[in-house]
């Protein structure tokens, strides 16, 4: 997840923590948010609900959402 966020936001993976959010990552605007969602759906083969997309306001929240979807898929 950190590597994916590192690619999308163009910052090194070691600068990304669970607390990283649109407030701390300059590049994290609505368009990059959409790109992140698409990258997640592509990579983890999940489908995010509009509510999930709304709530993903930090890398930790993103990771938790992905984890939830993947475990319910199996």
């Amino acid at each position, binding site marked *: 997840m950190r*590597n*994916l966020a590192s*690619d*999308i936001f*163009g910052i090194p993976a070691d600068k990304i923590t669970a607390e990283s959010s649109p407030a701390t990552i300059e590049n994290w605007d609505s*368009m990059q948010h*959409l*790109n992140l*969602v*698409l*990258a997640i*759906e*592509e*990579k983890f083969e999940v*489908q995010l*609900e*509009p509510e999930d*997309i709304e709530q993903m306001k930090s890398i930790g929240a993103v990771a938790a959402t992905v984890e939830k979807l993947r475990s319910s898929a199996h």
Partner: protein
Amino acid sequence: MSDSTSNPVPAEHDPLTLRAQVDELIARGAFDLASRRLAQLWRRDPAQGTASFVIARFEEIRDKLALTKLKLAILRSFTVEPIVPLLRAEAFSYGIDLEVHVGDFNTYVQEILDSQSSLYRFAPNLVVLAVRADQAAPELYRDFADLSPEAALQAAERVVKSYEQWIGAFRKQSQAALIVHSLERPSTPSLGVLDSQSEAGQSGLILRINRELLRIAAEFHGVYTLDYDALLARHGSEHWHDERKWLIARLPIAAGHLLSMACEWMRFIVPLSGSLSGRTVKVLVVDLDNTLWGGVIGEDGMAGIKVGPEYPGAAFQALHRALLDLSRKGILLAVCSKNNLDDAMEALDKHPGMLVRARHFAALRINWTDKVQNLREIAEELNVGIDALAFLDDNPFEREQVRAALPDVTVIDLPKNPLEYAAAVRNCAAFERLSLSAEDQQRTEMYAAQKQRDGAEQNFQSKEDFFRFLEQEAELGPVSNVTLARIAQLTQKTNQFNLTTRRYTEAQIAEMAKQPDWQIFSIKVRDRFGDHGLVGVAIAHDQGDQCEVDTFLLSCRVIGRTIETALLAHIAESAAHRGCQRLAGWFLPTRKNAPARDFYQQHGFECQETNATGSLWTLDLKSSKLRCPDWIKLKVATEITEGEKH
């Protein structure tokens, strides 16, 4: 020798290793190699995250690479932003530095109509008009059941009229190529199966609009249709759409198909880029064992190799059909195989399951020499640059060797399963063409005649005897609708005998042909062995009492047969006839046009000036002794431009 399982893919293909290599190569300043690794990474893992990485690194090094720069504007009624990085990464892997301007949401009409809009300020080479059907034709899409048959038909006609207006307005402002998305049919028509019982149903009317779009596109130069309805059918409309993303982000295309959209645009971008850079794939070189047939001819023999109408041979026949379709588009085929010549030729000529035969190949290299050397020889024999070759081989080891030694060759990643071979060839953007000339369709036959000609030449004592024996007939003609595409194509593709290497689109040539001070000449050549078709173009521009040769080029097929002298003599004669005193022309050297370097000097021109870009030569028309050689029968056709194109 073509056993793909015995050659595991090298470890360096792992995406993480490749990323580390790219950063290390950039840090060392090895930009070309870094760019090759980036392309490799992209091919290996063409995902959204990879695209961001590729674009970020590419931005760092793009100024140091020799890429074709291209500006694309996307006019749209839906969110396309997430497609842009995928598209730029894909373009980069084709050697194209693509700059993309995305128009504001749903402002395409204003952008097209307003000559001051950001669209025209961006000065694109190429514009995509991507409008969703439910926005282009809302009445037909949403409230169809409310409409009377007459009202529905009128609504369809209004849509056609608006497209006609937009395209016409666009062409007045810009010479850029325009790609128009056609409209998708509704997947669930309002009236269910009843809809498909009539031409006037929802689907029928959308199809009618699409047919009209084809007609409109054909009326303009450089306007093309992207069959969006067929694209959806190919990928499956229900898989293509993502209703959630449409509702929350106005993105109608599912994450898994954003790349498909980018690749579909690439099928237009690659040939357009080729027309600007002169870098077009002209030859597909194929391997034999496990590529053109299943099995190894040297081991399995005629009875053992698999090729024919039944599975598994059918997969190879499907590939043959794809190859023959390429050859009908003017792409030459060649063979490069490690084999005993006799074994391979027997299979090529006599195997009942083969649809492609030895005569379909313009060059054959069947030996045990390494493929890199063979590819170089094929390029030389066919008189094309090494970058005009594409390479099809089932063996990943051979592919990597060719990639490493000849980075300019387009190497096709053949899937492991032969059932997917034909699609891999058909989907390769490098083979796309946006127009076809008569020459393209007969190219394979022309190369066969060339072989006879080369054989004949060796029997003559002097060049002059050979020229007389050839009985060349040349026909000079102006630009017409029949020749326009070929004339533009020659300016775009000719690299060797080309004095100024100026590339022109069809729209630009058509515009020039309208100006009284510009003269465009084209020359067709025939000889005792066959028809060469339209092989030469010259463009001259009158400037007072001097006529300047803007463009002078000849296809490599006829270089050195004095056709160039005939064409130049005609330009001089016609300039003198229009009252010019002098004929002037630049020679602008490139990496490839050395064959044209001494052209003006050999024809009695004097050098006036030399600078960093090239040298300027002039000929005094009064004292000139330039004449058409007496062994060429020269005809001047004076047909006028027929039909009206905008």
